[in-house]
């Protein structure tokens, strides 16, 4: 059996790559994609804990189902915001959205 720590390390690495994408990229679509990467990292950790820790089996998996549904909703809303932004500005650059700057 692969130790639990291996899966947690994979989850940490994937989460950090997703955070890097969110911080570094300008395109709103790539930012949404990086957010999905971070959610996937959390899912890996949940399933790994569900497989390795004692207690009621399968709780972590049920959690992941709910995360999947919320992730789908989040992608739909995020991309709709991106398309609305493109209609207004003809750009996808998140730096453009600075009206709230004092």
């Amino acid at each position, binding site marked *: 059996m692969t130790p639990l720590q291996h899966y947690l390390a994979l989850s940490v690495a994937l*989460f950090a790559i997703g955070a890097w994408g969110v911080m570094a990229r300008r395109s709103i679509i790539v930012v949404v994609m990086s957010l999905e990467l971070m959610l996937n990292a959390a899912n890996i950790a949940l399933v790994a804990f569900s497989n390795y820790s004692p207690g009621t089996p399968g709780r972590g998996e049920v959690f992941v189902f709910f995360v999947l549904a919320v992730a789908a909703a989040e992608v739909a809303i995020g991309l709709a915001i991106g398309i609305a932004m493109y209609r207004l500005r003809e750009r996808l650059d998140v730096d453009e959205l600075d009206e709230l700057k004092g």
Partner: protein
Amino acid sequence: MTDYSTPLFYIVAAVVLIPAVLMVTFRNLIYSAAAMILCFIGVAMVFVTLNAELLAISQVLIYVGAISILIMFAIMLTRQRSGEIRLFFHRQAWLALPAALALAVTMAVVLSRASFSTTPGPRNPGTSDLSNLLFDQYAFPFELVSLVLLVAIVGAILLARRERRR
């Protein structure tokens, strides 16, 4: 019988992490989306190695099937009309990499100090046990999630709809 699970895990982890890095670094949005699809397939493979077959299938259906197609459509609907796309990285993007590395180190330190049971406990249950759990004990959250999805659909249509000229 030799235990191949650990070398298999390293292969699967490479299928997850290499496309993830490529996704962030590719300049072409379509290439980025393709790398993201590969990464999602890798995550489904991770689920298989964790005895969560139903989740692996759901992952392929929802992420590789639905979400990727949605993102592809969004990329194609928002093609820049004039010239080529010039948006890759922020001016302060060089700060993002150390920040992400610091985040990873922090999480790794916290995880290495935390005490949780790492003994192989009860395995992830099979599909029938999982559906019993989902539709019996977690039936109410399940219904609530359908409401969340409905609100998301209405909100997405409202946001992406073309404005009517008055």
